[in-house]
């Protein structure tokens, strides 16, 4: 088994992902229960109300999470919600900035400071989270660009997170959805919709079943389903054909690997 050159496998994977990107198969995307609940939870938020958008991800997880952030902001801005965005991951503020520009400004013509604000990054993980729960103003005295909070219109009258309509969290790991559930969701009484990488999705199903999460958007598949609900197919939907072939390849490798293993086991003592 050792002499087998695994670079053939690498080549196979590259082709299986490349081909559907060039020639899309266009397989239909079906919406799962957890993603539908997320969409419905955001839809229930009264139009024009203020919401907290906790963006906790980084470039490495962009392919899964950035489409989710764009789709969620699309739904929020289509309801004229005022979005207060902040990050607990150091590499996230520029990504949030990009999402606000493409959806807020370019698509819905929203104005910075009036309809949305980017509060930038704070370290402290759980400490920052519970501190935001108690008082957003104390935790973020200025926004990402250094402007004091008091002079930002959308922040007027905003202090504890309890006063906001919903908390949408896009989470790549630690700190993320688990810490928001543990430190803020029930302690400060706010509904929590979570979008996360496929890797961490299985761990959050207990929170979804218990109602601590009112919606769970898992991985690129979740993002593609959400894009379908928001009727804005983006990079997630485009990637799903490649995911289909990728997964089929993985299953084939597992089955083949075992067949080879068990047949060769009989020959060698």
């Amino acid at each position, binding site marked *: 088994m050792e002499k087998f050159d695994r670079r053939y*496998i*690498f080549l196979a994977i*590259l082709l299986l992902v490349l081909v559907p990107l060039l020639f899309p198969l266009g397989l*239909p995307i079906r919406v799962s*229960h957890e993603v539908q609940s997320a969409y419905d939870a955001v839809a229930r938020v009264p139009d024009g109300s203020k919401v907290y958008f906790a963006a906790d991800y980084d470039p*490495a997880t962009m392919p899964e999470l950035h489409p989710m952030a764009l789709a969620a902001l699309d739904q929020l801005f289509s309801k004229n919600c005022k979005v207060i965005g902040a990050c607990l991951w150091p590499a996230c503020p*520029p990504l949030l900035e990009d999402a606000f520009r493409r959806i807020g400004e370019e698509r819905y013509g929203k104005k910075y400071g009036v309809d949305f604000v980017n509060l930038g990054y704070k370290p402290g993980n759980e400490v920052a989270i519970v501190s935001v729960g108690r008082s957003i103003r104390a935790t973020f005295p200025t926004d990402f660009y250094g402007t004091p909070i008091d002079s930002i219109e959308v922040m007027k009258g905003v202090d504890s997170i309890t006063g906001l309509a919903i908390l949408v969290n896009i989470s790549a790991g630690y700190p993320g959805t688990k810490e928001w559930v543990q430190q803020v969701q029930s302690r400060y009484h706010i509904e929590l919709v979570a979008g996360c990488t496929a890797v961490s999705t299985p761990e959050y199903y207990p929170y979804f079943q218990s109602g601590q999460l009112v919606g769970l958007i898992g991985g690129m598949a979740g993002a593609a389903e959400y894009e379908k609900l928001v009727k804005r197919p983006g990079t997630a939907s485009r990637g799903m054909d490649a995911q289909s072939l990728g997964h089929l390849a993985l299953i084939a490798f597992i089955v083949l690997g075992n067949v080879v293993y068990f047949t060769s086991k009989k020959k060698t003592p």
Partner: protein
Amino acid sequence: MKKEIPLLITAIFGSFMIVDYFVPHPAVSLVGETLQQWAIIVISFSYVLGVANIARINGQKISKRSKDWPFAVPLLIGLAFMLGAGIFGGIGEGTLFNDFFLYAYTPMSGTMFSLLAFFIASAAFRSFRVRTVEAGLLAAAAIIVMLGRVPVGAEIWDKLPAVSDWINNVPQMAAKRAIMIGASLGAISTGLKVILGLERNYLGGE
């Protein structure tokens, strides 16, 4: 002095975080908020310390010409450039700092992890062996969930996404909940031992 004061600080800060949860008194809440603001500042300094450490280790690597020392040069250049561009040039959109974040940091970080798609495939072929009942259950659940989550699964059998959803929401959820309860008992007991000073390795070891 060397151990007693840090242990006292740990006990005070730790127990206060607990009191702050149970006592809704405004005075307690104010003190709690202050301590949390202080913690955010100290944690921020610990990041700066971590980076200072990276700079020190790689500086020594170059001065002592140890293994792979030439590669420490681009490391220090990258560090100095981003630090200087960020602090003096600002970090918002349109700055040099933001450019190099989006077009140097992002591609390297994203590509580094995308290598895993290749590694997981070769690992699946070369080391995913179903030798026991347990491994068989794992493989079966993996295959069903993999197919159920992607569009092609529904093409193979239209009930597959529903079966995959059921596995995720019921048996898988129950087992993860058991792990979660076990882990929470571990975390709570460790937190208690740290606050009471029974667990001191973070002092000795550091």
